[in-house]
């Protein structure tokens, strides 16, 4: 186990940011850390990196306590917390050299250029960071995090503020780090789709508490879906479903649609039933039930 977190809690005055959180990350996996903004992801990551001291609970990384063995753990860990802030008056090369020295290394020019090539910045190595785009800064941030060749890489919202191409670049970079370099990567995001595409396991937290943890393939089981059924008359459609076999699957009715939990294989049968009952179907959209749950958290937060 690379990371073992037990009953982690962080209070800021009377506000509990992280509440009795426990999870574990195994070696070599990409671990998605999912939650809406303000859910406690960054606070947890800062505690993993000893930037913030926990109120209670324990964090063990590589089997050692982050409180007692901070420097040993950080020797094997690289991280970008929120946006990668670097020295804008220095070039990418100089930033890399500087941060390698913080890690106790004295890298050769060739080695630094090789590491910059991994994130596709070797051609802009000597440009000042102040002229870099957000995507380039993000990639450089990851290069700086990896400058001492860590076993564990922690990336906090690495795709924030990036354009679609930048997001794809970072996603590919994370996958490459995991698959080719055999790194363990913890990546936080507020987008389920992001985590879904790169993570092997994931944890969803809300208001500092664990909602669910497990393998992405199991949590996002494609067999179970939630259907958003849009009809010409949603109230009538709801009444028809309530009086049928489907009543136990009915989740809710909104202004725009009727929500039904179902197995994917049952969709044709449900559609046929509604049509047979004379319901004017406008459209059916299926979403994964976990995604639906996560979206409900997000919309709740938006309200």
């Amino acid at each position, binding site marked *: 186990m690379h990371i073992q977190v037990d009953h982690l809690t962080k209070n800021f005055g009377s506000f509990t940011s992280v509440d009795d959180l426990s999870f574990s990350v195994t070696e070599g996996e990409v671990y998605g850390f999912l939650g809406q903004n303000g859910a406690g992801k960054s606070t947890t990551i*800062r505690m993993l*990196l*000893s*930037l*913030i*001291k926990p109120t209670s609970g324990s964090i063990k990384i590589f089997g050692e306590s982050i409180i007692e063995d*901070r*420097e*040993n753990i*950080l*020797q094997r*860990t*690289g*991280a*970008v*917390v*929120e*946006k*990668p*802030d*670097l*020295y*804008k*008056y*220095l070039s990418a090369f*100089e930033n890399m050299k*500087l*941060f390698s*020295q*913080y*890690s*106790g290394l004295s890298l050769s020019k060739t080695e630094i250029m090789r590491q910059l090539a991994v994130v596709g910045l070797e051609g802009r190595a000597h440009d000042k960071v102040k002229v870099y785009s957000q995507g380039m800064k993000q990639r450089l*941030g990851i290069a*700086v*995090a990896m400058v*001492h060749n860590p076993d564990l890489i922690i990336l906090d919202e690495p795709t924030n503020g990036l354009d679609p191409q930048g997001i794809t670049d970072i996603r590919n970079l994370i996958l490459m780090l995991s698959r080719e370099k055999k790194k363990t990567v913890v990546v936080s995001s507020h987008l389920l789709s992001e985590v879904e595409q790169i993570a092997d396991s994931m944890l969803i937290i809300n208001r500092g508490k664990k909602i669910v943890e497990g393998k992405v393939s199991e949590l996002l089981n494609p067999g179970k879906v939630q259907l958003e059924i849009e009809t010409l008359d949603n109230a009538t459609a709801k009444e028809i479903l309530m009086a049928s076999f489907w009543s136990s699957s009915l989740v809710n009715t909104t202004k725009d649609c009727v929500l039904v939990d179902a197995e994917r294989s049952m969709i044709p049968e449900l559609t046929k039933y509604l049509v047979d009952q004379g319901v004017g179907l406008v459209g059916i959209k299926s979403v994964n039930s976990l995604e639906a749950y996560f979206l409900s958290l997000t919309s709740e937060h938006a309200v």
Partner: protein
Amino acid sequence: MQYSRIVNIEVYKIFRNPRTYIAFLVVAVVVGLIQLGFYTDGKTYLSFGLRSLSDTFDLKGKILNGYLMAFIILQVLLVNLPLLVSLVAGDMVSGEASIGTLRLILTKPVSRTVLLLGKFTAASVYTFVLLLWMALWSLGISMLIFGVDDMLILKSDMITQILSSDVMWRYVAAFGFAIIAMLTVAALGFFLSVFAENSLGPIMGSMSIIIVFTIMNTLDLPIFNRINPFLFTSHMLGWKGFFDIKVDANNEQIVGSIENLPAVLTSAGILILHIIALLWASVIVFKRKDILS
């Protein structure tokens, strides 16, 4: 060794940051302006100041010389230099917190104590280099422009003449003392920097404390007089003590002497105690600090 590595990195960062050179530019401009002013109107200015003495004494030689110029410049600049020192020292931690690099550094295997001590050492190197720069301009360039001779120092109740052969070591000692005084300011800025998330607060805070303490030093009130000996601002101008000369029984000056060496050393000691206390407090606070920036 981690400490020397951190010092090297921090010194490198200070001197690669364009903002650092503002202070060097300011010193060069201010010193240059004073030198220009005295080069054009200095003799008139001095003859006005010495007119009462001219009736009694026959003043010969180059009164307006490089040594006197350096003394005048130091009197002006050492009052304003704290602002330039706190500009960098106050930025050492809070500046990194505001741009976000502090959290990146602290994700590296660096001890917080070593990082803080390394940063203070780097701020001290900057202070030392800034004072060296000031010495070069105020003393070196003034000696080139105005030449050298015995040094006359005018005070409200007396005039001191220091032989030219007896001056230079006093300047070396005075600059040494000034370094301690400015390191105290740096330590104050550094301490405030540990609490803040932007550099403006510590810079303004340091200057505000210096202004308040200086006002307390200036006001001759019993309540302040009891506190004043413990305030660092009361001792920052202790460098002037190196230019007070002891006299013998015949009222002759003793070359190479200092009138009140224990007072100068006490002032230096109090300043050093302030530096240690502020640095110690900075380490305690920084070790416990949650990095939220």
